């Protein structure tokens, strides 16, 4: 347990020194200013517009920051051969991988906390708590995703692109399924095959469309059972990604 915590601590220290706190603060400031500016032209629902716009921007910025931070840190360590040095130590690969992920997940939790605070300007604390906790789980999943792609691809740009593509697809898939399932679409074999393929992909992706919803801020928190199911789904997929990453790491001849 102690090596895991030391690795996690090193990750936190690196994130602090990399400028992540300043970037996060800049994102918060930009979201608040943009939301306030745009809402000036709203004739009604100005507070809801500010809240919805700020929440959408903060969620997107948080995902991007975590992806890039994890990819940068991991790829740099691989390039500097620091990763190979760590693997030569008498520490199991699982301890090193999980330790890294815990460090990044803690960074992600701090980002989620910081990004939740401005939403208190427009929303009840309970709603913000629901949103912020879901964002923390979502960012921990993104950290696991970016860590997997970073080690698998060992290049910064492909790792970020793969993580971003996966994340965007997971967020949009429910809408894509509803478009593919419209009764106005001709049901020839190609259309049916496309629909089945989309449905099959949906089974393999996390339900990010159900997580960190702006609806919770504007229209009230979800039922407890639904909320726990959402968090449970995110946690399950995070563990799945960690397992995938460990399998990939163990099969490598390093």
């Amino acid at each position, binding site marked *: 347990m102690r090596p895991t915590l030391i690795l996690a601590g090193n990750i936190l220290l690196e994130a602090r020194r990399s400028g992540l706190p300043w970037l996060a603060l800049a994102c918060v400031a930009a979201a608040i200013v943009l939301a306030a500016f745009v809402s000036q032209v709203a004739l009604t629902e100005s507070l809801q517009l500010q809240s919805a716009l700020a929440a*959408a921007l903060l969620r997107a910025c948080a995902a991007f920051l975590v992806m890039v931070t994890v990819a940068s840190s991991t790829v740099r360590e691989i390039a500097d051969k620091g990763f190979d040095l760590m693997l030569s130590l008498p520490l199991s690969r699982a301890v090193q991988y999980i330790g890294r992920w815990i460090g990044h997940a803690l960074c992600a939790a701090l980002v989620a906390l910081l990004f939740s605070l401005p939403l208190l300007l427009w929303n009840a604390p309970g709603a913000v708590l629901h949103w912020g906790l879901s964002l923390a789980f979502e960012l921990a999943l993104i950290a696991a995703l970016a860590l997997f792609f970073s080690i698998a691809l060992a290049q910064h740009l492909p790792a970020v692109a793969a993580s971003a593509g996966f994340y965007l697809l997971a967020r949009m898939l429910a*809408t894509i399924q509803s478009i593919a399932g419209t009764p106005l679409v001709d049901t020839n074999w190609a259309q049916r095959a496309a629909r089945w393929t989309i449905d099959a992909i949906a089974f393999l992706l996390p339900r990010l469309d159900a997580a960190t919803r702006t609806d919770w801020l*504007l229209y009230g928190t979800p039922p407890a059972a639904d909320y726990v199911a959402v968090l449970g789904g995110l946690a399950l997929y995070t563990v799945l990604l960690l397992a995938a990453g460990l399998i990939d790491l163990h099969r490598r001849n390093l």
Partner: protein
Amino acid sequence: MPVWLAAAFAALLAAQIASHGLQPSTGAVANDLPPPPKSTALRLAGLGEDAAIARLAMLYIQAFDLRSDNPTPYQRLDYGRLVEWLEAILDTDPRSAYPLFSAARIYAENPDPAKSRIALEFVYRAYLKAPNARWPWLAHAALVAKHRLKDLALARRYAAAIDRHTTDPNVPSWARQMEIFILEDMNELEAAKVMLGGLLASGRITDPAEARFLKERLEALEQRTAAAASR
């Protein structure tokens, strides 16, 4: 650093500022509303942030044909296409009141009766899908039908729909009795004051921008009524 490099940078920056200043300003907004996207396309574009993309889309269409030098607002706006936009936005976030607010309080108050009717019918169709949430907009539509369009039959149809379809016990009695309200010999200002007073007293209007907008409308109505009475 070489002096020529700094000089070249300064010259290029000055050229950029000058070229931007020479371009004509884009103050006038377009009159022709483009075809609306489907609600699924809006959801896709918003990455699932339905509440945010619906409201941003409302701000987008709000700017069309609304210029300070336009004496008749929305005179060239295609209302058929406008209603398609409002339907798509309402479908994207059904709990947002912005499309209905705009339809009932802005687009329906067009001096062109045909365009006004198109906006009112959109409010009526939307009301039937969620009567308990959307009755305030149909109540305003009934007032517009009576006092602006002078169409008592249309106003009664809307008022009767409020009485028939709303089941929420929290809906105030003056809304349920709107048909009587329509038939009474009450002028537009008195009717608007009663309705607005009722909405404010019930706590339904909580957004400061909406409260400000409605207060300005009431003041404009008072000035118009006073001017008409003095003639």
